[in-house]
């Protein structure tokens, strides 16, 4: 029975990990906490729903398309909203992102209504993998998550874009002097981060129903994962995602299923008390 909880913890961990990586990179490059992240995830899930259920595309193809489309929403957000707020106080940015969260959430509500919708894909029976239980879509989700981590590492370490993002994240002025266009790099950073949000949103949509309110709880879980893993360290955030996923499902396993999300918040609070910079802080 415990195997069931662990498998589900791994699946949700894979989803939180993707979200936390995007959130963490966004914090590192922009310097603020993007509280509309959960709602951009929901947006990704709804875009995937349009491709998948309304246009009849394959579910994994729609996931990819939705991730790219959500990435473009990120670029739009940067161009239209965030460029005007360069150098604003942290408090202003937090309030601003809360307002954006409500704009996005209610925009989705306006278009698709409050009723949950489902992505269309063939459900198959679960099978045993050692002591764990999975079905194929779930295994593919975990594989996509791992693949995204590896691709993210390669992009950030070896490509011009990735190096530029890290340089701007460390010191925008220095990067500018060295001839790195902040504007271009930030556009890429927003595309990648919000694209990751869209991807994790569609993964979440595959595991259950898609409704406009679903992003908010995941926002706090993704933040827990990011803070747990270490501020400014995307790889730590990925590990944090798996820890949060497993921890909340194990809370359910000991009979506190109603409090599994609360338990994840508490874990974050305790870690912050003991290690204010998280488990694997950036240097």
């Amino acid at each position: 029975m415990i195997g069931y909880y662990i498998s589900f913890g791994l699946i949700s961990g894979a989803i939180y990990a993707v979200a936390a990586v995007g959130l963490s990179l966004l914090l590192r490059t922009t310097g603020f906490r993007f509280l509309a992240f959960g709602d951009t995830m929901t947006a990704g899930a709804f875009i995937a729903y349009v491709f998948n259920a309304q246009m009849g595309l394959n579910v994994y193809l729609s996931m990819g398309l939705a991730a790219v489309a959500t990435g473009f929403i990120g670029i739009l957000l940067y161009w239209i909203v965030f460029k005007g707020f360069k150098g604003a106080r942290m408090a202003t940015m937090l309030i601003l992102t809360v307002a954006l969260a409500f704009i996005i959430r209610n925009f989705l509500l306006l278009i698709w209504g409050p009723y949950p919708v489902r992505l269309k894909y063939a459900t198959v029976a679960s099978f045993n993998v050692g002591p764990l239980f999975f079905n194929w879509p779930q295994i593919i989700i975990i594989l996509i998550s791992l693949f995204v981590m590896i691709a993210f590492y390669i992009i950030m370490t070896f490509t011009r874009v990735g190096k530029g993002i890290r340089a701007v994240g460390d010191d925008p002025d220095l990067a500018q002097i060295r001839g790195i266009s902040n504007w271009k790099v930030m556009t890429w950073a927003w595309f990648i981060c919000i694209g990751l949000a869209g991807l994790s949103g569609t993964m979440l949509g595959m595991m259950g129903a898609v409704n406009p309110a679903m992003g908010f709880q995941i926002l706090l879980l993704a933040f827990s994962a990011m803070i747990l893993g270490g501020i400014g360290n995307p790889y730590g955030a990925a590990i944090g995602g798996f820890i949060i996923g497993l921890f909340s499902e194990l809370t359910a396993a000991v009979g506190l299923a109603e409090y599994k999300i609360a338990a994840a918040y508490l874990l974050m609070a305790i870690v912050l008390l003991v290690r204010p910079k998280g488990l694997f802080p950036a240097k």
Partner: protein
Amino acid sequence: MITFLVLTFALIFTYAFAGYMFNIHYGFTGLINLGIAGFFALGAYTTAILTTPRTETTFAGETYQVGFGVPVWVGIIAAALVASLVALIVGIIALRSVTGEHLAIMTLGFAEIIRFIAINESWLTRGPMGIMDIPRPFSNVWQGIPYILILLGVLLFIYFISERLRTSPLGRVLRGIRADDLAVESLGKNILYFRLVSFATGAAFGGLAGAFWAHFTGAIQPQDFSTTLTFLVASSVIVGGEGNNRGVMLGTATVIGLLYQAPRFLPKIGNPWTIPSARFIVIGILIVLILRFRREGLMPKQLVRIEQEES
């Protein structure tokens, strides 16, 4: 029409109480408390549990006993105290460990945890059903207008306290912490202590807001205290002008009265959710524009005159 006006004024007044909480936290001290709904819920549930006459309900095969039937004013005072006390605990965890930069996330999580408790601990809160038959003082007298006048009185009282707080030496320290916490610390002030004072004082107003709202509606449910509430209260303060006590009233009247309640008179368009969601988009865009072009809100912060001490 009278019913609608009474409801709107009750909303504006109670949300303004919570607005003063956000104003003390954010406008004065720079603490971003996104757990407004949590303190509101604490106040509402405290007074509801204390003042509701003891009743037994059987629901889905289980019997719940809720209520102690104490007088309303005891419940309201208890609500303020409980909210303050919980704010102290939350503050010690969230403000001690980090320099307050995680406070927004942690208070957001706090409000969610309060909501989970309200949903799941049915022996105390009757779970998703919520608590009904909360005493509603003066609800049958003149269509509830006396209660609105009481709310107005409490609002003036809270305004007076906030104004005193703003102009007092304590308020000066708080504003200093907001502007530059390291500078204040280097003057020998204990920042954590002053932040906790601000957090607990503000939370008492949040608790009052919830309590007076519970006694107005007479029935509360866990889903009444979602982030939407937090968003509306925070928006009101930002629109009115954070740090300005009169701005809180003006902002709440604008956001709650004009943007949240008045759209009910619009002709019905589209689906039942079209106008309710459109008004949140409008409020959201208004916030973005205010933050971008008029950071100080409708009423800018007033400067405090510091009286010269004769030596």
